[in-house]
């Protein structure tokens, strides 16, 4: 980032805090990028002729006579087909040893789509995972996170979903990714022969945390290029958005803002919504689907990060270890796909909605039976049967290692109903029972 000849170089800082430096400067625009002694920074406040810069990697060791140059533009990315197959850092610079790419310069974090120009999402995305396809079907143009404790294999599940989703492009936005996970993604994409349709923006645990703040916008700017300019279906993977939000709170704390719940900035909702709302189905056929990861602490979804996320995204896929079967499942209670009703029973078999609901209801009965058992009460015959059902349901459908098509999932559902229950106990619409019931 050497400064160009015509740029004015400032050499007198008036104020230094942990995260920011201030100086007297003229003709600077809000949000503009700058370089402070070789470190990337961004304008976060202007008061009179005082400009406050947030230095992404922190201010340790920055002297008052540091060299400051302004780049004259907000953060941006060069877009072209050359993005495909490449790995970049949070600033959009290659980290794979390859050359800088050529392309059109776009500001990241650009404007929102006019809601009247959106198309309603309507294309089912099949993943083979019944916990998703049966109970929480995904639709292209949707935005949905995995809610998972940090010891769960969320990145593996996400990689599976991505590779089975038949997207034209997959864009990975990695935030605070461990080096191992970074290499994991690289390897599975490579093994699948998919590298040429993947673009990655990665901030690892070795990089300064505040840099992460740029990653989602970088990934989504690339996504908009492929979805709008090329009419492609693009799948964006954002992992881990909890670490993104943590970076927001670091910044706001350092800037002495009044924190709201869980030390998060009061603007957390808007900050996250701006990112997730980039998911869209365009009338021209292009689409951006966002699958994200929000790690939880001890399964707590009331914490401000998952809470605000849940209010923004179109559902969530809650991963949980089921000790009965010793596998990770997509929890049918806490999970939800808000767009599923656009496709189930229409792009899938007519009995889909009914089978889905009945199975979850019976699974809930099993949970009640388990509570009874834990409290030392006798179980009824029905209770016993719900428990048997729940175990089979979990094993054959909810486990994340299931990989079958939706018709098979529905058939398995009817098989389980017929094996464990009477028709009245399952309580489905008569037409469906007449057609699909299996003794």
């Amino acid at each position, binding site marked *: 980032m050497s400064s160009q000849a015509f740029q004015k170089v400032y050499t007198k800082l008036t104020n230094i805090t942990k995260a920011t430096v201030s100086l007297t400067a003229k003709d600077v625009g809000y949000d503009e990028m700058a370089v402070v002694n070789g470190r990337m920074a961004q304008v976060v406040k*202007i008061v009179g002729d005082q400009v406050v810069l947030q230095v992404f990697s922190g201010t340790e060791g920055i002297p008052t006579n540091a060299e400051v140059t302004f780049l004259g533009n907000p953060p941006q990315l060069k877009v072209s087909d050359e993005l495909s197959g490449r790995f970049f850092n949070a600033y959009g610079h290659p980290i794979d040893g390859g050359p800088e790419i050529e392309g059109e310069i776009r500001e990241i974090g650009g404007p929102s789509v006019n809601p009247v120009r959106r198309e309603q999402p309507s294309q089912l995305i099949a993943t083979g995972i019944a916990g998703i396809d049966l109970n929480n079907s995904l639709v292209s143009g949707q935005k949905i996170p995995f809610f998972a404790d940090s010891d769960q294999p969320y990145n593996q599940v996400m990689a599976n979903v991505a590779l089975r989703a038949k997207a034209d492009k997959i864009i990975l936005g990695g935030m605070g990714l461990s080096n191992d996970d970074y290499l994991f993604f690289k390897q599975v994409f490579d093994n699948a022969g998919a590298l040429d349709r993947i673009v990655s923006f990665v901030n690892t645990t070795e990089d300064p945390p505040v840099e992460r703040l740029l990653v989602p916008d970088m990934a989504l700017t690339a996504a908009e290029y492929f979805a709008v300019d090329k009419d492609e279906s693009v799948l964006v993977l954002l992992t881990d958005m909890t670490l993104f939000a943590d970076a927001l709170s670091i910044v706001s704390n350092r800037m002495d803002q009044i924190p709201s719940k869980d030390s998060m900035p009061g603007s957390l909702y808007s900050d996250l919504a701006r990112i997730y709302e980039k998911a869209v189905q365009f009338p021209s056929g292009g689409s951006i689907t966002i699958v994200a990861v929000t790690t939880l602490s001890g399964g707590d979804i009331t914490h401000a990060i998952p809470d605000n996320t849940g209010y923004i995204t179109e559902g969530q896929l809650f991963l949980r270890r089921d000790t009965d079967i010793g596998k990770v499942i997509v929890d049918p209670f806490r999970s939800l796909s808000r767009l599923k009703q656009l496709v189930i029973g229409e792009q899938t078999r007519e009995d889909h909605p009914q089978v889905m609901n009945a199975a979850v209801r019976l699974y809930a009965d099993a949970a009640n039976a388990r509570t009874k058992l834990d409290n030392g009460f006798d179980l009824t015959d029905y209770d016993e049967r719900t428990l048997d059902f729940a175990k089979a349901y979990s094993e054959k459908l909810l486990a994340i290692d299931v990989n079958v098509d939706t018709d098979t999932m529905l058939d398995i559902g009817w098989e389980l109903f017929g094996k464990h229950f009477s028709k009245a106990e399952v309580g489905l619409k008569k037409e469906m029972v007449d057609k699909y019931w299996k003794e």
Partner: protein
Amino acid sequence: MEKNDKTTGTVSGIIANLVVVDVDGPVGQNEICFIAHGKERLMAEVIKVTGDQAYVQVFESTRGLRPGSKVDFEGHMLEVTLGPGMLSRNYDGLQNDLDKMEGVFLKRGDYTDPLNREQKWSFKPLLEKGAEVIAGDWLGEVEENQMPHRIMVPFKLEGVYTIKSIVGEGEYTVDEEIAVIEDKDGNSVSVNMVQKWPVKVPIKTHKEKPRPFKLLETGVRCIDTLNPITEGGTGFIPGPFGTGKTVLQHAISKQAEADIVIIAACGERANEVVEIFKEFPELDDPRTGRKLIERTTIIANTSNMPVAAREASVYTAMTLGEYYRAMGLKVLLMADSTSRWAQALREMSNRLEELPGPDAFPMDLSAIISNFYSRAGYVYLNNDKTGSITFIGTVSPAGGNLKEPVTENTRKAARCFYGLSQDRADSKRYPAIDPIDSYSKYLEYPELQKSLQKNMGEHWLDNVLKAKDILFSGKEADEQINILGDDGVPIDFHQRFWKAELIDFVVLQQDAFDKIDASTPLERQKYMLEKVLNIADTAFEFKNFEQVGDFFKRLINQLKQMNYSEFESEKFKTFEKELEEMLREFAVETKEEAQAV
């Protein structure tokens, strides 16, 4: 705030969308200004003034904005433009017509006209030359989507005016003069079909605002039967994410018997608005047979649109509602979610470094919410006609905790509480309105009780209370069963529990995505409630508790099949007949009768 020379200013500070402007003249609180940024003009609102500095919140992104940019103050507060042609429109929070904007992406500084200036409306005068009028009086009317749209004396006029001239029946654009009126001092005012009004000031052209007394039918059983809302009433729907706030609001806006429906999508998902765009032009208004979109206006300020405009959006919606109410129409106003509006206030208050209240919300949050809700209501207009705004807002409590400030303050302002429960949503008992905690204060109003008695029959209220008792008693029984075990309680407890389940499954639960079940007319609600209460009144005899559950599950299944069938259709009647037979199996009387034979 009227002034002759426009005040101007220069940008001197920028912190996100809060901009500090050095001004050269008088500025008013909430005055609108435009900041020049290259070719763009960014709209902003004054929210604080100290000395010669105005703090303005910009309704757009401030990216790239520089100190020294010029600012023009407009001399008025944020206004909406009112006139025929607002129905079926999709506006943003500042009433820009979204369909008129070019391109796929929203452009900064793109402001579009809310009305169509070319369209001709066929005007019919309602008053004659010489008549005395005051603000809000109906001079004439045009037909908007086959609904009478009254052209009113501008709201901002004070005192009595005399009509000097009024045009005859004919076709006019909104800007053409349709009347000239004159005040006592001989100052004349030219009136056309358009007027402007500041959104934060209530339109008060009515002479009286009685307590609401008439039920507003929503087709949602959980509301109409158990906790009805009234014409002109207020209600709120708090619930953690995913519990069904939006689905419930959409259901109400599709089915409610209103003349006009205004939906403010305030800081929520864009795809949910798209759903309305897509569905409402296809769906029929159950009362008129016309398309739903014809009675609907959408104010869309989704979560990715500028935060300051989010705050404005609910006021824009309310003002449009007041305008239609003043013409004697029944308006239903929905805002999803009022919490996002409160958050917008919080973001700005924090940027202004104001002393924060609980959870960093502004100290006056309670007053702001109450003031807003108080703009709803049923009114008698000066011509003795009536109009109403029924307002239902959703609240998105942080962490699902109903003790947070927005929920608590809304509880003080709204008369109906439809609390959505996570447990009910988790077990897919939709709509997840908690039957025990939720309430409608209107049920206690003698005015409403009287009108219910007249329209729903003498026993209606008793039946409703009875249903509530059964639900409550079922909950108690359930708790006992959980503590003592199935065998540890008398069989009667199981009956109590299952009678509550019966009401829950048949009356409360309603599938918003089923063509027939989605909306239940009052007549059908009454029929089914009586049916279910009859069952609850029947004495049954069971050998053991397992029989109770099995039996009631079969009853529930049968009644649900009825809910899914066309009312009084052959199918419906067949299910009903089978139900009667089932009932005889365990009913005590019939067994005795059988023995007697």
